[in-house]
């Protein structure tokens, strides 16, 4: 064989091998360097699961920690640190069996004692947690929160390192769902005791989730890196997660368009049409467990003891127009309080919700007159809302609908958030805008808000029948009977018109086409460990 030909073939082989090696290295580097960049709304107040508040902190904590129960991408409950559990016949005793391979990011095993420590800490009034009441269904939790009992009396006990027994006050069908809430995550006791209120910072943080905190620059970014000691780490594909605190959604959109963010926290409503036109394939809308509503102050005129007036106002607005033309982001018009798709619940609606528009408005006018108002003697009412372009647009639309249909004169009062909250709590309002996002997927999360003694019952609604139905539902063991009680309670409440539901929330975000594994779910809970990048 010609030596030159051999040399040529050899060179080609070497070049081919180098190319293969280069391609291989490039691909393996790409696979190793999966970095997800998320817009995350406001800066989290704290990354201590017991001090944090708000969605932005929960998003990060969900990656950092794992509770007894976790969630699949579609929101379905799946085992977390607990590999299995048992519930006794009374529905009040739960026994959780923990994974022996579950580890903290420093290599220590995650034990039942870590859960006991964490749960006692959150209900301890000295911790000052705003979310302590998440654990209210557990035996003695309320008494401990009120300072009447010692935290050690909480109905939770480590039977051994990997068995946790929980005793509830009464059967709580949504208890397992509650265990996905960030307040129920375990804590590494040694770290918390050593560093006190600084234990959640990057330099000290020890977590048991799929990721660990490596950098936190306030108002700039938070970086999480894969936790190699996480029991399910073999399935984790994204190596690094950047969380960017970006409050201004126009800024977030620009950064998304410039390719600096893969997944946004929300979208600017005033650019909804542009997004639908130009980024339709990257725009994701999903139902969310929340209701936007207007509350009536039932403790003062004009709404006190005037159900007909409240009903007339509730009937006079056109929810379809508000959802389509004012908010325009796929929101669902609300004719009831509890949103659709809540587990084990049939959404309830006002009796008149299928009435055609003309009949509905005629009925509203009739009720308005019966309530003592007319065109010559119109209702003059104050409507308060907190500063936001969206709230302002909705308030203007509602006041114009009331004026057109009934002749109501509305005085719109725009207030800064803390002022607005203070006025609502002191019941200095007449009508006010509000919204409620559920902490867990159960109708009770909505129903309890209108319980007469509930701390956030800003309308002052007080109906003993409603309270009684809620109390019965709290001790009912049969899920179907419980469901009927809650549905009956909602019907009772809707017939009293203490508030006016406007629309059910949806989540709206932009996601780059190469982000895989994201699935919209009603709780809007998304775990980075379930995602990967295909680029």
């Amino acid at each position: 064989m010609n030596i030159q030909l051999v040399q040529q073939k050899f060179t080609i082989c070497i070049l081919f091998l180098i190319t293969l090696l280069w391609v291989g290295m490039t691909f393996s580097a790409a696979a190793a360097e999966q970095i997800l960049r998320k817009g995350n709304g406001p800066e989290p107040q704290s990354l201590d699961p017991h001090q944090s508040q708000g969605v932005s902190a929960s998003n990060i904590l969900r990656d950092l920690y794992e509770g007894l129960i976790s969630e699949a991408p579609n929101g379905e409950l799946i085992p977390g640190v607990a590999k299995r559990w048992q519930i006794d016949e009374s529905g009040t005793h739960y026994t959780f069996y923990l994974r022996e391979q579950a580890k903290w990011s420093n290599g220590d095993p995650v034990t039942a004692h870590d859960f006991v420590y964490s749960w006692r800490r959150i209900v301890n009034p000295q911790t000052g947690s705003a979310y302590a009441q998440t654990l209210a269904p557990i035996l003695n939790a309320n008494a401990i929160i009120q300072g009447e009992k010692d935290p050690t009396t909480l109905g939770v006990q480590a039977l051994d390192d990997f068995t946790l027994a929980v005793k509830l006050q009464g059967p709580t069908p949504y208890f397992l769902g509650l265990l996905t809430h960030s307040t129920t995550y375990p804590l590494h006791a040694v770290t918390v005791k050593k560093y006190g209120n600084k234990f959640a910072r990057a330099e000290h943080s020890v977590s048991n989730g799929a990721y660990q905190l490596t950098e936190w620059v306030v108002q700039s970014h938070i970086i999480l890196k894969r936790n190699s000691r996480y029991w399910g780490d073999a399935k984790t594909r994204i190596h690094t997660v950047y969380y960017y605190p970006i409050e201004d959604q126009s800024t977030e959109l620009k950064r998304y368009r410039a390719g600096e963010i893969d997944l946004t926290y929300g979208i600017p409503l005033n650019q909804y049409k542009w997004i639908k036109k130009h980024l339709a394939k990257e725009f994701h809308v999903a139902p969310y467990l929340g209701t936007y509503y207007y509350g009536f102050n039932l403790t003062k005129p004009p709404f006190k003891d005037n159900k007909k007036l409240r009903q007339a106002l509730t009937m006079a607005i056109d929810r379809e127009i508000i959802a389509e033309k004012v908010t325009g982001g796929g929101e669902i018009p609300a004719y009831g309080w509890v949103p659709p798709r809540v587990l084990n619940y049939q959404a309830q609606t006002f009796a008149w919700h299928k009435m055609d528009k003309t009949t509905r408005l005629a009925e509203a006018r009739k009720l308005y007159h019966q309530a003592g108002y007319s065109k010559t003697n119109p209702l003059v009412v104050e409507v308060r809302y907190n500063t936001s372009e969206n709230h302002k647009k909705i308030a203007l639309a509602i006041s114009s609908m009331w004026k057109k249909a009934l002749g109501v004169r509305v005085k719109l009062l725009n207030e800064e958030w803390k002022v607005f909250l203070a006025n609502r709590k002191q019941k200095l309002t007449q009508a006010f805008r509000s919204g409620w996002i559920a902490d867990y997927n159960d109708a009770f999360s909505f129903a309890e808000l209108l319980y007469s003694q509930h701390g956030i019952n800003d309308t002052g609604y007080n109906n003993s029948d409603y309270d009684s139905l809620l109390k019965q539902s709290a001790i009912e063991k049969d899920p179907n009977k419980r469901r009927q009680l809650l549905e009956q309670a909602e019907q009772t409440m809707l017939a009293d018109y203490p508030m006016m539901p406007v629309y059910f929330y949806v989540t709206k975000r932009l996601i780059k086409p190469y982000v895989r594994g994201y699935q919209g779910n009603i709780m809007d809970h998304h775990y980075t460990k379930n995602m990967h990048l295909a680029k």
Partner: protein
Amino acid sequence: MLRYIIKRLLGMIPTLLVIITLAFFLIRLAPGGPFDTDKTLPEEIQLNLDKKYHLDESLLQQYFRYLWQLLQGDFGPSFHYQDYSVNELIETGFPVSLQLGLSAMILALLVGLSLGTLAALKQNTSADHLVMSFSMTGVSIPNFVIAPLLLLLFAVHLDWLPAGGWDSSRPSTIILPVLCLALPQIAYIARLTRASMIEVLHSNYIRTAFAKGLPMRLILMRHALKPTLLPIVSYLGPATAGVITGSVVIEKIFSIPGLGRFFVLGALNRDYTLVMGVVIFYGLLIILFNFIVDLLYAWLDPKVRY
């Protein structure tokens, strides 16, 4: 001079005390408290939080406790960012604002002085009109209009610069925010320089210098520039203090972790200690910069002597 410096330094103490006292009581007059949310806290937890942050004490007690803390250089824990103290937040936010602000001021000075001088020398020509039109535009168009426009052009459409974030090791992240922050300053400085330079150029000693046949460059550098700078220096003191303590709009649009956002977010969240910390820090800088301006006056103006 030394006596003057000591007198001025001592004079800062009562000024600062007035700032602290006013800020302390004003922020507490605002409705709502630091722990108010749309959820209601159980009474026992509210009491414990109040105790932890000494909100259960009388206002006077809180005031004197705060003064005592300040004397030890401690601004206290942030009520809102519970994992951080106010000192730590200022320590992380201020270097960013300082770098951004100083870069913007240096750029503004270089460009503003040059443009202003050019306009004064070419008074009532097309060059003068062009510079003044630019200045008028710079002064009139607010940051929240110009910043998104530049961002759309350079970051989204041309993809030359990043759309946000801050990394001092990557100059590309600094360019757009510095430019946006510098533009109105350039406009102000150019206008001030032009007016001042025209006035100086019409004074007798400059006319004499021209009559003696001195070259233009020498007249400008040796005789005209120093007195021209006087009104600009007066403007620079508070302007620099304002710019280096953070621009809320620029920081928000470019997602920059500076001090300006803490001020606004602190007030909105009723984070008493954070607002106090930033107000005191800002007050201190304003006083210091005004003091430096007064000292510079003595160097620039032979008529001023302390």
